[in-house]
C-alpha cells in the first residue's frame, strides 16, 4: 500500500477539445477514506477509471508510491472496484466469485481457500458461500463484488462508484457502516464516488468536491460545511445550500444594497463581490440592529425541528434557519443578520475573503 499520486492527469474524450477531467495534480493518501462528491457528469467516474486503469489518461502520469503505473493495465494495479450495480459472475457460487480473481492469477489452491474464507468472514458472507450469487439480495451482491476486490494481497485501493445506487434505502445505512467497518479493519485506501452529500459526509475522512472536471475543494466534512472555498461547495453541501447575495466592497466595507454588513477581510480590491452565508448563520430580528439586511419575508417552511424563513432581498432569495418556536409572518419586513464567522466573500465563484464585524458594531 502506498499513496496514489496523480501528476498533471487529465482526460479528454474528444481529442482535447473539451476536458472531462482537467489536468490536475492530486494525492490520495494511504489508508484514508475519501468521498469524491460532485454532480452527475462532473468527471467522478472518469477520475476513478483513470486510477483503476480502465481508462488511460490523455495527459499526465499516475504513481502508486514510487511506482509509475501510467501504462500498467488494470489487472496489474491491484485495485478493487465496485460499480453502480452488482457485477457478479452470476452462474457461480459466492465462493467461486471470490476465488475467481485468484484462480486467474494462478494462486495455489490452499491459499485461495484460505483467502476466500478470510474475506468471507470479514464481510459476513460465511453462510452464503455456497449459494449461487445471483440469488442473493442486491446488498449482499454488492458485498460480494467488493469481496472479489479484497481477496487479493496488496490491494492498492478500493474504489466504489456509487455503490449504493441500487440498494434499498433502508439497507443503505447498514451497508455504509459495513464499508466503514471494512475500512477500519483492512486499512485500505478507499475512494467512494457519490453525488449524495449525506453519503459523502457520513462516510469519509476527507471529502473531495469535483465540479466540471476539477477539484474545487477538499477537506473534512466540517471544513466543507463551515468554510466553503467555492460557491459550488456552499450550494452542494448543506441542506438547504448557502445563500448567495450580490454585494459591493468599497472603502473596506461590505454593502448589500444600502446596508453595511461588516468589514471586508482579505486582500480585496473594491468592486462587486458576492456574499455567501449558510442559512444556519442567518439570524432574523424584527428591529434593525447594525449590521443587518432588510428583507421581506416571503414564506416560512415548517421542517419539524426548525423553520426555514424565506425572504427576498432586492430580488434575491435569502433563507434563514430558525428555531421551530419562532414566529415570522409572510409579508413582514424583518432584519437578517449574518454571523461574522459564517459569512464569506466570493469573486468568480471562488472565495476571496470573509467578513468581520464593524468596530463597535452591536449584534452581528
Amino acid at each position: 500500500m502506498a499513496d496514489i499520486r496523480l501528476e498533471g492527469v487529465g482526460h479528454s474524450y474528444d481529442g482535447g477539445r473539451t476536458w472531462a477531467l482537467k489536468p490536475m495534480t492530486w494525492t490520495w493518501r494511504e489508508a484514508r477514506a475519501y468521498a469524491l462528491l460532485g454532480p452527475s457528469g462532473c468527471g467522478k467516474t472518469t477520475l476513478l477509471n483513470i486510477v483503476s486503469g480502465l481508462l488511460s489518461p490523455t495527459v499526465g502520469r499516475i504513481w502508486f508510491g514510487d511506482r509509475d503505473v501510467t501504462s500498467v493495465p488494470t489487472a496489474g494495479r491491484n485495485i478493487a472496484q465496485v460499480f453502480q450495480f452488482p457485477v457478479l459472475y452470476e452462474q457461480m457460487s459466492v465462493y467461486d466469485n471470490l476465488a475467481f480473481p485468484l484462480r486467474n492469477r494462478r494462486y495455489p489452491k490452499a491459499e485461495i481457500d484460505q483467502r476466500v474464507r478470510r474475506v468471507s468472514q470479514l464481510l459476513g458472507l460465511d453462510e452464503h458461500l455456497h449459494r449461487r450469487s445471483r440469488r442473493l439480495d442486491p446488498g449482499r451482491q454488492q458485498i460480494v463484488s467488493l469481496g472479489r476486490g479484497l481477496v487479493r494481497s496488496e490491494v492498492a485501493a478500493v474504489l466504489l462508484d456509487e455503490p449504493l445506487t441500487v440498494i434499498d434505502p433502508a439497507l443503505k445505512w447498514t451497508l455504509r457502516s459495513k464499508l466503514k467497518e471494512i475500512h477500519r479493519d483492512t486499512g485500505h485506501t478507499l475512494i467512494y464516488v457519490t453525488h449524495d452529500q449525506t453519503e459523502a459526509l457520513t462516510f469519509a475522512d476527507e471529502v473531495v468536491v469535483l465540479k466540471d472536471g476539477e477539484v474545487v475543494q477538499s477537506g473534512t466534512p466540517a471544513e466543507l460545511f463551515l468554510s466553503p472555498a467555492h460557491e459550488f461547495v456552499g450550494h452542494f453541501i448543506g441542506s438547504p445550500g448557502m445563500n448567495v447575495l450580490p454585494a459591493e466592497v468599497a472603502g473596506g466595507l461590505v454593502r448589500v444594497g444600502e446596508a453595511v454588513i461588516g468589514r471586508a477581510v482579505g486582500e480585496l480590491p473594491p468592486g462587486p463581490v458576492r456574499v455567501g452565508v449558510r442559512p444556519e448563520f442567518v439570524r432574523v430580528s424584527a428591529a434593525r440592529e447594525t449590521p443587518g439586511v432588510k428583507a421581506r419575508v416571503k414564506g416560512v417552511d415548517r421542517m419539524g425541528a426548525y423553520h426555514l424563513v424565506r425572504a427576498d432581498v432586492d430580488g434575491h432569495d435569502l433563507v434563514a434557519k430558525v428555531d421551530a418556536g419562532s414566529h415570522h409572518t409572510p409579508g413582514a419586513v424583518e432584519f437578517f443578520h449574518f454571523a461574522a464567522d459564517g459569512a464569506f466573500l466570493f469573486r468568480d465563484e471562488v472565495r476571496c475573503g470573509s467578513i468581520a464585524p464593524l468596530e463597535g458594531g452591536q449584534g452581528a
Partner: protein
Amino acid sequence: MTSQLAEDAGAETSPREEARGRQADLKPKNNRAWFLVLPVVVSVAFTAVIPLMTVVNFSVQDIFTPTDRIFVGLDWFRSISRDPEVRAAFLRTLLFSAQVLLVEIPLGVAIAVCMPRRGVSVSVALVVVALPLLIPWNVVGTIWQIFARGDIGLGGWTINNVLGIGFNYTLDSTDAWITVLLMDVWHWTPLVALLAYAGLRSIPDPYFQAAQIDAASAWATFRHIQLPRLRGVLTIAVLLRFMDSFMIYTEPFVVTGGGPGNATSFLSILLSKIAVGQFDLGPAGAFSLLYFLIVQIISYVFFTVLTRSGR
C-alpha cells in the same frame, strides 16, 4: 380484503373510501376485457384454425371425389407413422436439424464475438452479415445450385479442379447433403450472429471492466460473462433455427429436388410429394398433423430445457 384495503388507506378511512375499496374488490370479476382479444381470435381462426381443421377433416377420411368419401378414423395416422419412407425422412430431417444447430449456433456466436463493438465498422459488419438473410429462399437455392456445379459453378469447379476432389451433388448423396447443409449454414448463420450480437451489446461495460480487474482471460470473460448473458437470445435462436431447418423445403427442392435418390428428401419434400404430387389428401393430412405435432413437442422440450438450465 375490504377491511385490509381500508387499513392500507390509513387511519382516516371514511365510509366512502371503504365503499371504493369494496368496488376495487369487485373489479377483477368483470371479464369484459376478454372482448378486446376478439379481433385476434377471429383473424387467427380464419388464417390458422379453420385451415387446420380442414386438414384434420382430410386426415380422418378417404376422399375419392368431393361427394364420395369414407370416414376411416385413425387409419391414415397409423399407415403414415409406419411408412418406412416417412420414417427415413424423419430421421434424415432430424439429423439435418441437429447438424444445422451444431454448426450454426457456435459459428453465429463466434461471428458475433468477433464483430466490432463501436465505430463505423459496426454498420459495415452488420450489413455484410445480414446480406444472406435478405435473399429469397428460392434465389438462395438457385445461387447454390449454380455455385456448387462442377462445370460452371465457382465452388464446385474449384473443388473439382483446384483441390482435385471429385464433387458432384447430382450424383453423390454425401455431396448433395453437404451442399444443402452448407447452403443452410450460409443462409441462416447470420440470423444467429445478429441475435447473439444484440445479446452481447446489451451487456453493460462494468462487466467487462470487472473482468479486466479480475485478470480474466478472453476465454474466461466469454465463458463467465458473455455466454451466460446470451442465454435468452440463444434460446430464441435455437428455437427458430430448429423449426426452420426441420421444416426446410424451398432450398433443397431447388438444389437437389430431394435427390439423388432420397438422400435429401426431408419431411417437407416428401409431404408435398404426397399432398401436391399424388394428391393423397388423407395421408397428407395425417402426415401434416404428425409433422406439426413433432415440431411442437421438440420446440417445447428445447424451450423448457434451455430456460430451466439457467435457474
